[in-house]
């Protein structure tokens, strides 16, 4: 494949709404240090994370997704179809239930009756995969307006006593609205690079609860099989090399150079991974968008939360060129270019900059 640019006659997906939402409960490093063998300095020097937000009891992924989705639809504002969408994609690793998908419930709660609704699963790469899926729905004229929500409540699958993961992950949701438009206009999404390597599925995994090891299968799964597990050092190595390669592939497909990138927006896994990838690409750190310090790794929500945070701080100007790059379990990775549009910033999106 030489180029994955949409054909000139097909409509492009154009970003026209954006919002993030994190649950109100803030958990600081000091609070974690009360129950884990760690301290604030250890967490900050290894991850760059100062605090994260966690869902409250009874708060599910759809609850976060609805809040972010509602704010994103509101920010998409004026024009025809304002406040609506004819397709809803939720990308998550922590759906409300194994069955059905979370997106139909989210669509119904947002009043988007009859909208196409389904989930996309690509772990922490979910948002970039979701963008490509949304762009496909729009290019094929299946939908003219797509609400894409990245939402995760990792607190529901991470063992609270697992020091390595409990300090890294946070809960949150980020959403964008994409409308049919022209590839040359501001807000247009593309080019893309998506990839996977399932030979390494064991590096990031919840072992039990699926068809490979069903809960209904007699013998109780051990706590370790029920919880999220990640082989940190190996994941770090794959993340750094795959993200840099995916970013380069995408720039190459678009005929762009690293210098053309005004803002690099990586999946917010760990500050050290972000800085390592930025350095590998030859991008100065100030062009690397990071909010991992205040929300941790929020899975599929991380890129839209980082975008909402940067937008709320006035860092993104219309016409700026953004490169989004993610990496996650699967293994999966992906990148996408995006020209920043003029977006209405809604006061309630302040919630994304706690």
């Amino acid at each position, binding site marked *: 494949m030489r180029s994955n640019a949409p054909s000139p006659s097909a409509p492009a997906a154009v970003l026209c709404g954006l919002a993030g939402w994190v649950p109100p409960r803030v958990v600081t490093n000091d609070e974690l240090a009360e129950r884990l063998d760690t301290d604030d300095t250890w967490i900050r*020097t290894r991850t760059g994370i100062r605090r994260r937000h966690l869902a409250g009891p009874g708060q599910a992924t759809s609850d976060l997704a609805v809040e972010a989705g509602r704010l994103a639809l509101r920010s998409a504002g004026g024009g025809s179809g304002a406040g609506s969408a004819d397709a809803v994609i939720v990308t998550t690793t922590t759906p409300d239930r194994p069955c059905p998908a979370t997106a139909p419930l989210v669509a119904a709660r947002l009043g988007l009756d009859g909208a196409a609704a389904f989930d996309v699963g690509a772990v922490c790469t979910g948002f970039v995969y979701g963008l490509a899926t949304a762009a496909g729905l729009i290019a094929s004229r299946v939908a003219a307006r797509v609400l894409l929500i990245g939402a995760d409540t990792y607190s529901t699958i991470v063992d609270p006593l697992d020091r390595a993961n409990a300090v890294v992950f946070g809960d949150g949701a980020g959403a964008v609205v994409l409308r049919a438009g022209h590839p040359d206009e501001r807000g247009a999404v593309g080019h893309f690079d998506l990839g996977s390597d399932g030979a390494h599925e064991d590096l990031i995994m919840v072992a039990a609860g699926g068809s490979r090891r069903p809960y209904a299968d007699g013998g109780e799964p051990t706590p370790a099989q029920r919880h999220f597990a990640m082989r*940190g*050092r190996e994941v770090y*190595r794959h993340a750094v*090399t795959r993200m840099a390669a995916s970013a380069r592939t995408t720039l190459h497909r678009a005929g762009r150079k690293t210098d053309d990138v005004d803002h690099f927006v990586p999946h917010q896994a760990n500050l*050290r991974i972000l800085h390592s990838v930025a350095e590998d690409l030859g991008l100065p750190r100030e062009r690397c968008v990071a909010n991992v310090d205040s929300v941790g790794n929020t899975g599929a929500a991380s890129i839209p939360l980082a975008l909402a945070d940067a937008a709320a701080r006035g860092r993104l100007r219309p016409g700026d060129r953004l490169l989004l790059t993610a990496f996650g379990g699967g293994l999966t990775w992906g990148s996408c270019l995006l020209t920043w549009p003029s977006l209405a910033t809604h006061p309630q999106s302040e919630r994304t900059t706690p």
Partner: protein
Amino acid sequence: MTSAYEELVGILTRLHDAPADLIRSEATLGALDVDSLTTVEISIRIERDLGVTVGDDELQPDLTLGEIAALIDARRATTV
């Protein structure tokens, strides 16, 4: 050509904020307070920048910078 030791010090100082006077050939990774993710980074960069594979599991805390440089030189000699 720059020596493996100088290149290793270059990699380390770009990654790590250890004081320059502590970075000596006899200094161990442990003495420099190099943590596990930093060893992964060092391993990635040795491979990327010097074209030699030194696994992060080989970069044990009791290894000195001089010993790591010797390892790089030995592997370079066998790969050329």
